[in-house]
């Protein structure tokens, strides 16, 4: 069941991202010359670099983000590969790799949550339609948020929220608190909450890349 659900979910998300890319490119009238594609790929690669304009905190933030991204990719592959490809439980060296990067990822998430929470908080400009509904007359000084930004913020808070069941479902299983049925419940919780977290994180990362490229 989980295998089928995961496969469909990943296909839908990746398919949607590809479709969005194509539609956006067509809308902008992009030409699919090899040079343009190469330029885009190089631009994407440079996103990994540390910008000179960043201060110490900014550098730290980016480094932690890159580390979290690396951990996320490794955890994604080690966690979903045996399940999706072989239909087996995670075991062997993949399990050890997964368990090694998991606490690093958890720590990075916690730090990023603290560092990004203020920037990702919702404000009045995020909800102009809500303003209209409740007839607020006061004009907002803040610029209207772009659609991407809003979705990014929603994704950020979803990641922070989903991180709790993802981490707790595994850690609590390491204590003699839950019996066999409870362990199975925790494992299922970990699986499905991780799936949601992965999908949201993929969308979040895609939107960050799009924002960086477009600006």
């Amino acid at each position, binding site marked *: 069941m989980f295998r089928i659900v995961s496969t469909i979910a990943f296909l839908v998300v990746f398919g949607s991202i590809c479709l969005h890319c194509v539609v956006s490119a067509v809308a902008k009238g992009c030409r699919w010359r090899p040079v343009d594609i190469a330029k885009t790929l190089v631009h994407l690669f440079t996103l990994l670099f540390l910008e000179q304009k960043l201060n110490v905190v900014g550098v730290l933030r980016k480094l932690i983000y890159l580390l979290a991204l690396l951990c996320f990719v490794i955890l994604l592959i080690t966690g979903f590969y045996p399940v999706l490809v072989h239909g087996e*439980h995670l*075991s*062997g*060296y993949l*399990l*050890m790799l997964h*368990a*090694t990067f*998991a*606490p690093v990822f*958890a*720590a990075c*998430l*916690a*730090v990023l*949550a*603290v560092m990004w*929470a203020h920037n990702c*908080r*919702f404000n009045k400009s995020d909800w102009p339609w809500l303003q209209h509904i*409740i007839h607020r007359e006061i004009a907002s000084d803040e610029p209207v948020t772009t659609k991407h930004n809003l979705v990014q913020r929603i994704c950020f*808070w979803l990641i*922070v*929220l989903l*991180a*709790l069941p993802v*981490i*707790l479902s*595994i*850690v609590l*299983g*390491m*204590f*003699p*608190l*839950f*019996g*066999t049925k409870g*362990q*199975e419940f925790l*494992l299922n919780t970990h699986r499905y909450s991780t799936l949601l977290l992965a999908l949201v994180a993929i969308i979040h990362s895609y939107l960050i890349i799009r924002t960086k490229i477009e600006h």
Partner: protein
Amino acid sequence: MFNIRTLRKGLLVTAVCCLLLVLPAAADTNGELLGDKDDGSRAIPVHLIPLLDEDGQKITPDDELILPFSAYQTCGECHNYDKISSGWHFNAVDANVAPGRSGQPWILVDAGTGTQIPLSYRSWPSAFKPEQLGMTSWKFNQLFARHMPGGGSGELESDNPDEVVRGFISGKLENNCLSCHDADPAHDQAEYALQIARQNFRWAAAATCGFASVSGSAKSMPDTYDPLMPEALDEPKLRPPTIRYRENSFDHKKRVFFNIVRKVPAERCYFCHSNIDLGETEVEKWSTDEDVHLAAGLTCVDCHRNDLDHNIIRGYEGEASVSTNLLAATSSCKGCHLPEETSPSPTGGRLGAPEPKHGGISPIHFDRLTCTSCHSGTWPKQKTIRTRTSRAHGLGTYSVDKSDDALPHIIYPVFSKQSDGKIAPHKLIWPAFWGSLKGRQVTPIDLEIVRQGAGIIANKALRRYGDWPSFTEETIVEGLALASQGSIDAEPVYICGGKLYRLDDKGKLIAEEHDAAKPYLWPIAHDVRPAAQSLGIRRCEDCHSANSPFFFGGVEVDTPVVSEKAFVKKMVEFQGLNPVYTKLFAISFVFRPLLKVVALGSCAVLGMVLLLYGLRALACIVRVLGEN
């Protein structure tokens, strides 16, 4: 005109016909005997019954020739003997019976020739059939029937004319119902072993009774002796087998009381199913705890049940696929301790079995391990220990060798992968025998031939029992060289300590791995330790640590070769696991507390961030809703 006489005649004929029709139906329903079908009463019928000899004749104390009673005739009057003979304890010789999971084999031991070889009539992997060693059922019974309940090989006919003659004198080893069902405290199963040794097969069952005593020996009788019409013997020192019944055993109707029970006492099972661990400081019965199920008040047959067919439950997972016992599926550990999820009615708590919580144990353990891995046998130590068993070492018999080094050497607990892929605790023996190699197939050489050859080399009488002899490589070379001059048409080899020894073209000794040299293992289930003494009860590191006995304990490689005696294998080699990975995984548990701290700390931070901004969002909502 109506005739009264004719009417009476007609009525009489009709009555007789009706009687003839009804009587057979009342007397015999589907061939069932009196004791075959349960009437529902839990009371035990009193077995005050006549004794019948092997010809079905009633035995009385006034008989000129007092014969032993026959279980086939005496018990068979009320209980279907043939159906009982199809039971697990009696059907080893039936090739049509599925062998099921490997069990404890009979172990042929000959210390002088460096032989210990697992034998079984059942087709268990790595066990040899007696006929592969040239062993007839007659010889098999002499060696091993001491710890059998009769029947099986005891009732096989031999093709050997000499054995046919001896078999007539000794009689058949019928099913000995009393081995299990006799609750008389005076029942002496050790007498059975003694009578087997004397070849008094016909008398063996009766000898175990408290009201009978057997003397004499069929073994010493000449081939011409007729036990049913005995004549005076030329040699006055020879004593023919004779039975005497206690004088007051017979009542006024010449019947004898048998203290028969349906629920077999554990002590009856113990004669054949006892073990003693060696090399431990606490091995005496008074200083060790028995199986937790027995301590809780259960007895063996509360779990190991059977119907009239005596197809007793062995109690392992998957037994239902090979057993016809209706309770096979529900009489394993899971069957009693875990409720059946698909059952329409509750099934948990059978026999008062507690449902285990298994707190903190991830479900993968139940896919990879049997229940017995954590709960059975002795707590694993850095090296395996040796143990002795009733059937292998003749425990409970009069002349048992109590020395710790006596062959066979059974090693345990060895945590090994079973045929179903799960790891379970096993007992193990390293086969040692002289054989002939043809292609990849090794066939054991007849032990008597080996003894003759070994006797030539040693130039003295060889002992059968005791510890290993001290073999050197030169000894093995001598033996193989002598064997190659013999009549065998294949390459002579010697198997021991997990290796196959043979001579190369230049006469140099080579030792190599071979399937025939692999150890014979059989899973164990008893004694079950309490839950508070199960593996993992303290912490994960009971098994998952760099020096845990479960994975890295040493398994003794038992061998008569002096230079190889100190060799041990690691437990992980028997589990089908990658040793490097297992070691790394175990080492990673050192960092587990740190992982927990980091993970919980991260959750705390994430939780506080969510709480902070969640409260701020709530404050915003409250403010908006409160405005005019």
